């Protein structure tokens, strides 16, 4: 026996080989030779270790240090540092994506630590081409026990009692299958192993065959003894050359060692087996089709009964088990049914291997107890979704499976639960999809797969899948019709019932499951020709434009910036957006989340380019529009929604008057957003342009107080209610009525209305300020308080990544010196002499997932602590204030919001009143408010014209602006142009704008990064 001081286990699975592990191995062996370490250090090539995305993976024992993405060029340094000097080489260690922590040892990486390895217990730990190493880890001990100590019936009942169910998909109890075959009378019986892993996205069988092939052979011998078989086949797909190679080696070794063949282990039991290579047909994964294929025919399924246990391969009793099932068997026999059943759920025992892929940080193979929650697999083991995208759904069970959406992250994954949710366990392919995946397109993709792989034997599957695919394809191309969804459901039902085999019966599953959870996306495609994930490209010009709520022509104005034609670019902005310089500063820019450039490096800085245009080109002049129509419209609220509607209506020739309670127009843009983000002169400029159309704004006029509804109804024909959401939500803790307790928006409004008094110190917050909440207004309130000289702490009950505030705002707050306490919630506010003196808080921890996919905060008992403060600002959300609405008006109010949708999207139950913006939706974005304003203006105008029997409004022809199309031949990766900012030390001194704007050179360079997805070539 040779003792080595260190063993280096290098993954040689398909994934790591593709990433270059064989070159690494060669370099390692050479380097060890060179440094005369070959006698001290042993190099072992293992099978797949499961962490495929970060390959090649190398683990150095005895320390158990794991190195990832190792390249041949790293080897000399690694040998020098780790093996000679004994220092861990930091730069090749694993970084936890969510915390960016470095984790050197394998057992501490959550991906490995949270798994329970049974099937994969030897992965990355043994050399799969060495029989001895398998034996050293209890290999063939289960088989020895079965052959010497157990009768066939005992084996069957042990497997039956273990609760093991078929891991290939259907979950039929393995012991029962064996029992039936054992009862069949025949001289010849077959044990078959299904290694035709055809589900795209599943690779656990490949991994087992590559990493631990003997475990499958052992399971087959035990099965053979149980049913009385002497011959077996392993049906392996030809796409897995390495698995076949390792299987061949293992079979050769086992035969030579007397573990296969005649008189196994001297017990007198004979069993031989052969590998049969599949030739690429998904349907051959189906039990009877696989048998037909081994018989040398076209792999078509045959009707059951007779079941294979009675008449299978060559009409002889046969059992077919999948690789993962068989790999469990040796352990069950050795350690007993009770041990096996000790983990899992009531009806699903043991562990399940999942192939975790798609939009997830830690792609790889994951073995967990049955009943582990989807959230644990995706977030705790999988490390969450890359690029801070949102989880949409996980496809479980391959093309025959279904999607499990975000609201079921807490679901314990076992056979029963998965079926209840509309998916199937299948072989355990778990494909994570982020928000950028379209449900309809995914359904089309899976249907295309099934249609392509349909063997054509039975009509429902052959023709039905084709028809369903046609309908789905039409929907993704914008040619969907009302009734298509119902037709799909009906056809799905027919195919499910009438198809001959599993492939056909399950083919409609992805369609049914996407309709179940994402029906609104189907409807959006059919009715609005909208694909919110911006996947179905036939429905739109460019993803950014399609994502913008007002469909701004982003590619055009960016192309004009590139061409240096800033004035023309400005005209394009104003075609859809009355507030481009506001949006260039404070828009939440959802367009950028769908920018195709983001898939390559980083999205375009669309928002900053928009701002650049308005900062650098003269604002196009506006002339008053003559009033040409007799109907008059009143708008309540001079915020972005009200002013947009007023502008659109004025442009259509209506007389419009806007009523505003506060002393200045602008709504939340003025009262909620601080000047360092949106300078007042910028906002005023936009409002002045709107007023210039001939719109009158009556300030200091609250409808229902300063002017009655009756009067308004007398003077105006239609009324648009866009009064926003200006009331902070209460925290509902004791002490909220003390002095110096503010609501977030109330504080900001007070500051903006009385800026001079605050700056002179006539109004004061005190030294220490606590802000509660994690949204943009919490950050705004905190940054204003900081500028007033306070020491500010934000209290948030979840974690940073859960904050609804924009990332750049959070970062700015941190840079400026604001402290943020996470996982903290206020319990009560204490005061002396009616004024706040402290706040008692408690710590939170994260529990189950909520419907938004975030973990719910749960109080930690006994974690109370007190913060001494002078002021507390509660910015945990706003609600509209609907106290002015007259009950007699018939306008419906639900949960503090106005209800619309009476024939027109924006009309209330009273047909003279329309409503939109935050007053309807609750707090939302500026751009959503502008979109609502457009909608309301169009609805009001259309309803008037309809009632008058006039033709629909036709927009006057706009000035034709020629947009150049210049596309670079080669796209070179380059990050987004950063926005220059004022130094954080200077910011606290005042309210000057923090973001300084692009220079001309910056802007034109940034514009060149646009990939021009809108171009039709």
């Amino acid at each position, binding site marked *: 026996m040779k003792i080595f001081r260190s063993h280096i286990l290098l993954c040689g699975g398909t994934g790591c080989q593709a990433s270059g592990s064989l070159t690494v191995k060669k370099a390692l062996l050479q380097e060890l030779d060179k440094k005369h370490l070959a006698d001290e250090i042993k190099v072992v090539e293992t099978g797949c270790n499961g962490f495929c995305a970060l390959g090649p993976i190398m683990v150095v024992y005895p320390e158990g240090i794991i190195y990832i993405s190792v390249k041949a060029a790293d080897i000399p340094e690694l040998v020098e540092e780790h093996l000679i000097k004994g220092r861990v080489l930091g730069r090749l260690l694993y970084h936890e994506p969510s915390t960016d922590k470095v984790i050197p040892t394998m057992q501490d990486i959550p991906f490995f630590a949270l798994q329970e390895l049974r099937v994969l217990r030897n992965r990355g730990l043994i050399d799969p081409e060495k029989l001895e190493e398998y034996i050293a880890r209890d290999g063939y001990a289960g088989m020895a026990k079965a052959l010497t100590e157990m009768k066939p019936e005992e084996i069957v009942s042990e497997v039956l009692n273990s609760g093991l169910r078929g891991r290939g998909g259907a979950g039929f109890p393995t012991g029962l299958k064996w029992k039936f075959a054992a009862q069949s009378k025949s001289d010849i019986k077959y044990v078959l192993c299904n290694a035709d892993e055809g589900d795209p996205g599943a690779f656990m069988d490949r991994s087992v065959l590559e990493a631990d092939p003997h475990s499958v052979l052992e399971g087959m011998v035990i099965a053979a003894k149980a049913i009385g078989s002497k011959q077996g086949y392993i049906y392996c797909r030809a796409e897995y050359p390495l698995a076949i190679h390792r299987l061949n080696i293992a079979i050769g070794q086992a035969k030579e060692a007397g573990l296969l063949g005649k008189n196994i282990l001297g017990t007198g039991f004979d069993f031989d087996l052969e590998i049969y290579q*599949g030739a690429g*047909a998904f349907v051959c994964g189906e039990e009877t089709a696989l048998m037909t294929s081994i018989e*040398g025919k076209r792999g078509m399924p045959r009707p059951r009964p007779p079941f294979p246990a009675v008449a299978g391969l060559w009409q002889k009793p046969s059992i077919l088990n999948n690789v993962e099932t068989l790999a469990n068997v040796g352990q069950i026999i050795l350690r007993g049914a009770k041990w096996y059943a000790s983990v899992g759920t009531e009806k699903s025992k043991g562990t399940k291997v999942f192939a975790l*892929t798609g939009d997830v940080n830690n792609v*790889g193979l994951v073995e967990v107890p049955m009943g582990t929650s989807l959230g644990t697999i995706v977030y705790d083991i999988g490390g969450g979704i890359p690029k801070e995208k949102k989880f949409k759904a996980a496809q479980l069970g391959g093309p025959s499976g279904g999607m499990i959406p975000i609201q079921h992250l807490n679901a314990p994954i076992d056979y029963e639960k998965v079926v209840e949710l509309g998916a199937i366990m299948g072989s355990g392919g778990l494909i994570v999809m982020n928000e950028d995946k379209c449900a309809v397109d995914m359904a089309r993709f899976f249907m295309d797969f099934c249609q392509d792989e349909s063997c054509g034997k039975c009509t429902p599957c052959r023709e039905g899948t084709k028809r369903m695919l046609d309908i789905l394809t039409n929907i993704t191309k914008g040619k969907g019709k009302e009734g298509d969804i119902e037709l799909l459901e009906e056809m799905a039902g027919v195919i499910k019932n009438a198809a001959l085999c599993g492939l056909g019966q399950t083919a409609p599953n992805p369609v049914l499951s996407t309709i179940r959870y994402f029906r609104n996306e189907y409807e959006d495609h059919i009715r609005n020709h909208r694909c919110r994930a911006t996947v179905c490209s036939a429905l739109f010009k460019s993803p950014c434009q399609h994502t913008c709520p007002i469909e701004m022509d982003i590619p055009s104005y960016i192309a004009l910036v590139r061409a240096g034609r800033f004035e023309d670019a400005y005209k394009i902005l104003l075609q859809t957006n009355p507030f481009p310089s506001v949006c260039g500063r404070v828009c939440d820019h959802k367009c950028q989340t769908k920018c195709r450039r983001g*898939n*390559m490096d980083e999205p375009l800085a669309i928002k900053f380019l928009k701002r650049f245009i308005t900062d650098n080109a003269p604002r196009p002049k506006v002339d008053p529009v003559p009033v040409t129509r007799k109907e008059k419209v009143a708008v309540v609220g001079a915020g972005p929604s009200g002013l947009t509607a007023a502008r659109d209506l004025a442009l259509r020739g209506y007389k419009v008057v806007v009523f505003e309670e506060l002393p200045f127009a602008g709504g939340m843009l003025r009262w909620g957003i601080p000047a360092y983000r949106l300078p007042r002169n910028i906002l005023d400029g936009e409002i002045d342009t709107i007023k210039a159309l001939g719109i009158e704004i009556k300030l200091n006029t609250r409808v229902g107080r300063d002017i009655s509804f009756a009067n308004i109804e007398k003077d105006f024909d239609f009324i648009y209610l866009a009064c926003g959401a200006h009331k902070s939500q209460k925290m509902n803790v004791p002490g909220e009525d003390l002095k110096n307790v503010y609501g977030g928006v109330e504080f900001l409004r007070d500051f903006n209305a009385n800026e001079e008094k605050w700056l002179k110190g006539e109004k004061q917050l005190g030294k220490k300020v606590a802000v509660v909440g994690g949204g943009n207004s919490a950050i705004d309130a905190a940054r204003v308080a900081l500028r007033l000289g306070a020491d500010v702490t934000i209290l948030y009950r979840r974690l940073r990544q859960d904050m609804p505030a924009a990332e750049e705002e959070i970062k700015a707050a941190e840079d400026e010196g604001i402290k943020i306490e996470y996982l903290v919630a206020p319990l009560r506010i204490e005061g002396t002499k009616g004024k706040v003196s402290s706040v008692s808080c408690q710590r939170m921890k994260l529990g189950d997932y909520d419907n938004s996919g975030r973990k719910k905060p749960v109080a930690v008992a006994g974690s109370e602590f007190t913060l001494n403060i002078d002021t507390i600002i509660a910015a945990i959300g706003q609600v509209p204030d609907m106290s002015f609405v007259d009950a007699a008006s018939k306008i419906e109010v639900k949960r503090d919001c106005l209800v619309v949708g009476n024939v027109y999207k924006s009309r209330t139950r009273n047909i003279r009143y329309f409503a939109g913006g935050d007053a309807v939706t609750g707090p939302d974005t500026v751009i959503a408010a502008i979109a609502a304003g457009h909608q309301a203006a169009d609805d009001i105008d259309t309803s008037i014209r309809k009632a008058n029997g006039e033709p629909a409004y036709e927009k006057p022809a706009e000035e034709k602006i020629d947009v150049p199309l210049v596309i670079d031949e080669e796209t070179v990766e380059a990050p987004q142009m950063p926005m220059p900012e004022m130094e954080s030390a200077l910011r606290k001194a005042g309210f000057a704008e923090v973001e300084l704007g692009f220079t001309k050179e910056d802007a034109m360079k940034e514009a060149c990064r646009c990939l021009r997805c809108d171009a039709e070539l």
Partner: protein
Amino acid sequence: MKAEDSELLKEFTTEQVAKLDEIIKKHKSKPGGLIPVLEEAQIALEYLPISVQKKIAAGLNLPLSRVYGVVTFYSFFTMTPRGKHTVRVCLGTACYVRGGKAIADTLKKEFGIEEGETTPDRMFTLETVRCLGACGLGPVIVVDEEVHGRVKPSKVKEILAQYT
């Protein structure tokens, strides 16, 4: 050399034909030997035109229709000659959600051919496959036996250059 091989010899070398004889002989006595024969024959002869199928049918004592049926059923078999290199783009789910489609489009554009076709210079045959089990590295393309992971459209040219 037998007379009935003359048709085969128009397309294949004597060694290839001899190898085919050997393959047929090896599997002749086994039940279900047809698919292994076809698999090995395709490796030796690169493709399986009717002339080859006829010979296999005769050798295994099967009707030609049965051989033809099997060849056309399984995607592994091909009846037309192939390029020197086979480029297979994975369009399995994991690769699809990570941008496999864009890679396939880039390759089609690069070669000027459709899926299943061979470039006029017979250098490359383009195929799409459903999952190679290397999902951790998606999107994946396989050139001959070599797997290339995390492929981006901009990297396609670079990869192909290694084979020309």
